[in-house]
C-alpha cells in the first residue's frame, strides 16, 4: 500500500493537478481574511473552503490516469483486491493533498486573524504565543476543517468516475453537491460550521455527530468507489 500511495502522490504532484486548487484555495482564504476577522470565524471560513477544494482534488485524482495504466497498476497491486487498493490509494492521496492545503490554510488564518485575547496582538510572535497559551480555538478550527475535508472528499468521490462516469454530469454534480454540502443543514460540514458550542475559551467545537457523520460519508463513498473500480464498468467515452 505504501508503494501505491507513493505512486499516487507522485502522480498528483507531477501532474500539476495541485496548482489550481492551491491558487483557488489561497484566493478564497484571502477573501475571507480581508479585514480583521476573529480567529474562530477565520478558521471556519478556511475550513468551509476546503470542501470545494478537496472535492476538486479528488476529482482530479479520479480522472488523471488513463484506463490502461489504472489496469496495469491494479494488476501490479494484486494478486487479490488489486483494483480496490489502487483506487483507495488514489483517494487517500487526494485526501492527503487536501489535508496539506487545510493545514496551510489554518496556519495562514492563524497569522492573519485577530486572536481572541484580553488585548489585541499584532505581531506574528504574539499570535503564535497566544495560540500556544489558548490552543482550544485553533484545535476546534482544525476539527471543523477535518469534517469539511471528509465531506469534500466524499462529495468528489461520489460525483466522479467510476461512480458517475459521464464527464459533464460529473463536473456539474460535483459542483452541486459541494454547494449542498455547505448550505444544506443536513450536511455534516454545514453542521460543523454552524456549531456554536462555544466554550468559555471562545472555541467553536463541531459536534461529535457531525464528525462521525462525515467519517461515515467518506467510508461509504470510498467503499462504493473502490467496488465500482474493481467491477470496472466499461467507460462511456
Amino acid at each position, binding site marked *: 500500500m505504501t508503494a501505491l500511495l507513493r505512486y499516487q502522490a*507522485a502522480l498528483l504532484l507531477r*501532474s500539476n493537478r495541485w496548482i489550481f486548487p492551491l491558487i483557488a484555495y489561497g484566493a478564497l482564504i484571502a477573501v475571507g481574511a480581508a479585514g480583521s476577522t476573529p480567529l474562530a470565524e477565520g478558521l471556519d471560513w478556511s475550513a468551509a473552503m476546503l470542501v470545494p477544494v478537496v472535492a476538486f482534488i479528488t476529482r482530479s485524482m479520479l480522472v488523471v490516469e488513463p484506463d490502461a495504466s489504472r489496469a496495469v497498476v*491494479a*494488476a501490479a497491486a494484486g494478486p487479490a483486491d*488489486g483494483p480496490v487498493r489502487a483506487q483507495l490509494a488514489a483517494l487517500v492521496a487526494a485526501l492527503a493533498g487536501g489535508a496539506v492545503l487545510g493545514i496551510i490554510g489554518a496556519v495562514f488564518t492563524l497569522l492573519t486573524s485577530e486572536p481572541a485575547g484580553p488585548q489585541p496582538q499584532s505581531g506574528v510572535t504574539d499570535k503564535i504565543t497566544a495560540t500556544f497559551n489558548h490552543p482550544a480555538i485553533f484545535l476546534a478550527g482544525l476539527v471543523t476543517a477535518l469534517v469539511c475535508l471528509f465531506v469534500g472528499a466524499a462529495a468528489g468521490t461520489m460525483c466522479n468516475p467510476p461512480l458517475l462516469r459521464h464527464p459533464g454530469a460529473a463536473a456539474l454534480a460535483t459542483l452541486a453537491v459541494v454547494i449542498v454540502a455547505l448550505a444544506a443543514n443536513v450536511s455534516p460540514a454545514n453542521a460543523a460550521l454552524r456549531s456554536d458550542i462555544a466554550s468559555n475559551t471562545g472555541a467553536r467545537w463541531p459536534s461529535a455527530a457531525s464528525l462521525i457523520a462525515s467519517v461515515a460519508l467518506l467510508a461509504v463513498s470510498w467503499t462504493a468507489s473502490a467496488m465500482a473500480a474493481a*467491477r*470496472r464498468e466499461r467507460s462511456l467515452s
Partner: protein
Amino acid sequence: MRLESVGKRYGPRQPWVVRSVSLDVLPGRLIRLEGRNGSGKSTLLRVAAGVSLPSTGRVTGRPHTGYVPERFPGGLPFSGRDYLLHLARVHGLRGPGAARAVDEWLDRLGAAGYAGQPLRALSKGMCQKVAIAQALLARPGLLVLDEAWTGLDQAARGELDAAVAERLADGGAVMFVDHEQARLAGRISERWRLDDSGQVTVADGFGDAAGGAGSGFAAETVVVIELSGLESSPAAVLGGLPGVLSLDGAVVRVSSGASDEVLRQVLGWDGVHVTGVRTEPAAQTGQTGQSERGERAAGR
C-alpha cells in the same frame, strides 16, 4: 489458479461478454485465447489478471500477476524510468533490486536510451515497451499479454518471446491474445476459444503448432506412446503435460514437437514402462482442420 464459473458483463442490462467459465490455469502453461473481435478475449484476460472482478463466480489462487494492456497510452507525467521504478515498488520490489530490474528490462527491450524521456513524448512502440517492462519486472507467476507484441520492433518481439519462455520455465503461467496466428507457435499448451455467446471451449495447443518446435518431425506427425504400469495419478499428470493430445488408456498421443519431453517425464516415473513408440499422421487424430494447416504454415 482456478476460474470458477466466471461470468462478466458490463452492467445489469448488458449482454454477457463471458459466461460460466470454469477452467484451471496451471503452472508452466502457455494459454492462447482465440475468438473474433469483440468475443470477450480482452475481458477474460482482465478478469484473469485481477484487473476486473467477475460479475459472477470467482478466481482463486491467483499468483503475482503482470498485465500488459492492449494499448498503453503513456499519458502520465513521468519519465519511462520513473514510472517503472514506481511500478517496481508496487510490484513489491524494494531498494536497489527495483532499480536493477528496471534497468535490466529497459535494456533487454531496447528502451534504455529513451527511458529518461517523459512518457508523453514517447512513441507508441516505446510506450508499449514500458508497459511490457513493468509486467516482467517482478518475474510474475502469471503473465497476461493482451496483444502485447503490437507496435514492437523485431528485436523487442523476440525479447518478449524469450521472456515468455523464461516465465514458463520458471513455472509461471502465461495467457495471451495476439492477432498473429503464428505467435509462440510450438510452445502453446492450450487454446481457449471464445464463441459469440461468451462461452469458452478448450483445445490443445499443438494442433496448429507442431512444426514450430523444430524437432525434425514433419508438422503433420503425431507420436503415439504406449505405456504399461500407468497408475491413475501419473495419468492425470500426463494429461496435463504440454503437447499431450489425447490419453486413451495406456496409449498417449503427443505432438511431435513435445514427444521428447513427454518421454523424458514418463521414463522418470517408477513402475511405468514404455512398451512402444510410433508415429502417425496428425489427420488421424481429428485434431486439425483446414484453417489450422494454414496457421501451421505461417508458424514456420
